[in-house]
């Protein structure tokens, strides 16, 4: 196709066509910028949307069935309040599911039902619904419950050599929710493991389960000092050391040059190990504690709990030995057995990351308290809990208050407090592997409920229809639409540059157009040359923009980090966005932007192409 060759020639920048070349470069640059910004925006937005969606779904489920008013007005629900078998109390969904009887009402013993009471029905709504859900392929369902309680966490910190920690307390009102999903759990940190070790030791429990679950590979000594067993020093080694005296009595020895604040006298000297004896300034010492100050790192190998085999460097010399983990801080570890790790906790709760920011660590203990019927009527009930992890609640308004707890604990709290409180969400949580199937699964559920006449009792919602997510998803969709519109408009504006450039090009190439026409080129061929020019420009802009976008997305966190440092605070707050931003180019964004720019640049080529094809050959040849 000679049209391609001619179009290519026209687009190669030439000094003789400076204006055309400059306008072409500007057009390509503007399109590249628009494409770049659009792809980065859409990709980041899609990534954030996906991560938010995952977080929201992690807290609930991709599809939920919540009881409607019809359920609460039904005979099935109301009848418990009139039945002795049900203790004259309404039942939660879970209780309904576990209850052996559908209709507990016994007219011979229970009082008569009031006039206008809901008509009797034999259908067991909850059990029938559960069986419908069980029949759907690749779908799991469970009852989710929410219970309100107040949480009190005791943060024991700075255990010190005497194992006498300082206590901080976090008290807050919260909602307990059962959740099987763990997709948004934050990673366990070395600080968490240190805390678990300290808590275990504080309660004088065995570290053996922890050592089975976790492999500790590196520890560091705390800043305030660690009492090092003398066996760590190797035969023949000499260290510069400082002796701390009270009068003539050597109390302890340190190794660092740290400024001493105590009133003790200090004596600089050398500590040596010779013939199995420890000598400080050539004087033999016995049972004098040796303190390693500062953060000295040891590689660790776990032995029988709580012992570690440690190897480190002090003053350039290798020291090694076996010591209890007590007083050391974990620096590196791996979770060797996640199942054993999960079993370490007593009534494990997973807290929103706000608690972590407030200083809570895995292993911290506390209790939840809630109002419930005890032996003496309404009273404060308590259950002890232990922090087993943290999760990122995303941007759900009440996300910071939702505590994920084992279903038994939630049930226990919920059944104690269950006062027909419909403000606390409850229902069936329906889970399946692919979020994109949500609407399809919903349709199937609705269909199967309709078949059994149960649909009026349930409000079936997908994750983007939940009351607390609806606004966010709608806002995100609206942001996306708005930006799509803006990017389409900007792309059209950018492509209008192409029109100007091509009109000038057509004018410049009048003679050549006439020559080609004289040699037999059709009007269509001439038009396609300029159409192709527009298309090439648009596409090279798109390609350049896409490359920029890929590079930008791969370095987005670093770029935002630099901007953040320059402005002194985070560019995108990790409270709202994830800790790391998405770096994948969104396929749909790429397709959208490339299609828009291709169409816009082709349209931009049409006007000049028509103009070019209409040139009067005879006149153009004569005027030269």
């Amino acid at each position, binding site marked *: 196709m000679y049209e391609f*060759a001619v179009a290519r020639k026209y687009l190669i920048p030439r000094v003789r066509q400076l204006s055309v070349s400059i306008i072409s470069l500007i057009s390509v640059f503007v399109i590249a910028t628009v494409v770049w910004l659009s792809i980065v925006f859409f990709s980041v937005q899609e990534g954030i949307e996906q991560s938010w969606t995952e977080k929201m779904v992690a807290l609930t489920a991709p599809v939920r069935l919540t009881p409607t008013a019809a359920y609460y007005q039904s005979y099935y629900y109301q009848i418990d309040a009139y039945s002795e078998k049900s203790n004259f109390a309404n039942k939660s969904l879970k209780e309904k599911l576990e209850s052996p009887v559908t209709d507990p009402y016994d007219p011979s013993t229970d009082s008569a039902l009031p006039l206008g009471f809901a008509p009797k029905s034999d259908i067991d709504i909850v059990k029938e619904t559960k069986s419908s859900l069980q029949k759907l392929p690749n779908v799991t369902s469970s009852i989710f419950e929410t219970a309100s309680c107040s949480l009190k966490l005791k943060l024991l910190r700075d255990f010190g050599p005497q194992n006498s920690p300082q206590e901080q307390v976090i008290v807050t009102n919260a909602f307990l929710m059962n959740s099987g999903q763990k997709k948004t759990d934050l990673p366990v940190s070395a600080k968490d493991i240190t805390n678990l070790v300290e808590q275990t030791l504080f309660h004088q429990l065995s570290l053996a389960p922890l050592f089975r679950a976790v492999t500790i590979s590196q520890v560091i000594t705390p800043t305030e000092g660690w009492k090092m067993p003398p066996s760590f020093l190797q035969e023949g080694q000499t260290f510069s050391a400082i002796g701390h005296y009270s009068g003539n009595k050597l109390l302890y020895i340190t190794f660092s040059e740290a400024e001493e604040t105590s009133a003790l006298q200090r004596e600089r000297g050398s500590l040596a190990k010779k013939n199995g004896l420890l000598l400080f300034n050539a004087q033999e010492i016995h049972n004098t504690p040796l303190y390693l100050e500062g953060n000295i790192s040891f590689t660790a190998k776990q032995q029988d709990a709580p012992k570690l085999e440690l190897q480190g460097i002090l003053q350039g010399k290798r020291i090694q030995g076996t010591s209890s983990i007590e007083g050391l801080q974990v620096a590196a570890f791996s979770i060797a057995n996640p199942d054993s790790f999960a079993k370490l906790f007593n009534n494990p709760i997973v807290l929103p990351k706000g608690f972590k920011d407030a200083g809570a660590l895995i292993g911290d203990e506390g209790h939840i308290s809630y109002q419930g019927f005890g032996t003496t009527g309404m009273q404060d009930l308590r259950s002890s809990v232990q922090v087993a992890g943290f999760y990122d609640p995303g941007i759900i308004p009440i996300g910071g208050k939702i505590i994920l707890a084992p279903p038994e604990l939630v049930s226990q709290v919920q059944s104690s407090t269950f006062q027909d409180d419909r403000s606390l969400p409850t229902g069936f949580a329906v889970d399946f592997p692919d979020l994109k199937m949500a609407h399809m699964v919903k349709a199937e559920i609705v269909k199967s409920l309709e078949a059994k006449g149960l649909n009026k009792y349930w409000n079936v919602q997908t994750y983007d229809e939940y009351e607390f997510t609806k606004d966010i998803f709608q806002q995100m969709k609206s942001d996306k639409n708005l930006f799509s519109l803006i990017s389409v408009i900007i792309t059209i504006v950018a492509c209008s540059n192409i029109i100007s450039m091509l009109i000038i090009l057509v004018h410049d190439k009048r003679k050549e157009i006439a020559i080609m026409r*004289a*040699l*037999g080129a059709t009007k269509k061929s001439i038009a396609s040359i300029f159409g192709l020019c527009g298309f090439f420009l648009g596409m090279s802009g798109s390609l350049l923009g896409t490359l920029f976008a890929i590079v930008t997305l791969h370095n987005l966190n670093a770029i935002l980090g630099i901007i953040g440092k320059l402005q002194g605070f985070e560019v995108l707050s990790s409270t709202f966005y994830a800790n790391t931003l998405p770096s994948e180019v969104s396929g749909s964004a790429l397709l959208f932007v490339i299609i828009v720019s291709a169409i816009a640049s082709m349209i931009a080529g049409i006007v000049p192409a028509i103009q070019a094809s209409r040139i009067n050959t*005879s006149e153009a040849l004569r005027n030269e």
Partner: protein
Amino acid sequence: MSKIVLEAQKIAKTFTHPAPLELFCDISLKVAQGQSVAIVGRSGEGKTTLLHILGTLDTPTSGRLEVSGTEVTLHNSHLLRNQHIGFVFQAFHLLDDATVLENLLLPLAIARANLKQCLPKALDLLKRLGLYERRALHALKLSGGEKQRLAIGRAFISNPDIILADEPTGNLDHQTAEEIQALLFDWVKDKQKAMICVTHSQALAKRCDATYLLESGTLTPTSL
């Protein structure tokens, strides 16, 4: 009797803009294979316009034109130009940014011919035109004579039945003009093709088999 390559019957051209002007009317012309025809006349008589009409670059107000036995219509004019007519212009009309070889091959590229297959023929033609060494140069860098030789080569490459030349030697010095004339007339004679020249050059007109004078809108045979 040689085959008629170009036949114009009662060709008229009238301009309505800016003021009504009848440039010529009732012009008829027949050019046969192996025949060269010169059209002479004063400037402004419409020689180039007539040539453009004969070459299907312009449309007559009325009249009928046949090229290589095919009646010219709006739909086939580009095909006739590409396959049966060769043009040589006073101003050469080459693509400045294309190389000598690319310029030569342009009519074949427009005809969607297989350029690889045509390459030996094109290189051979360049050798005959004395432009082989310059085949990779841009047309802009050639001298006037070289440009016109290339333009003639471009007209020859698709082996047309007729060449329409508008002052082919007008911008050239005497010696170069001689060379160009030789190229054109040799081609007409050797290949038994036809040629129509619009010229002011008596020498060129004299070499043609027939000469017509375009004056006051009519074309009449004349002798020099």
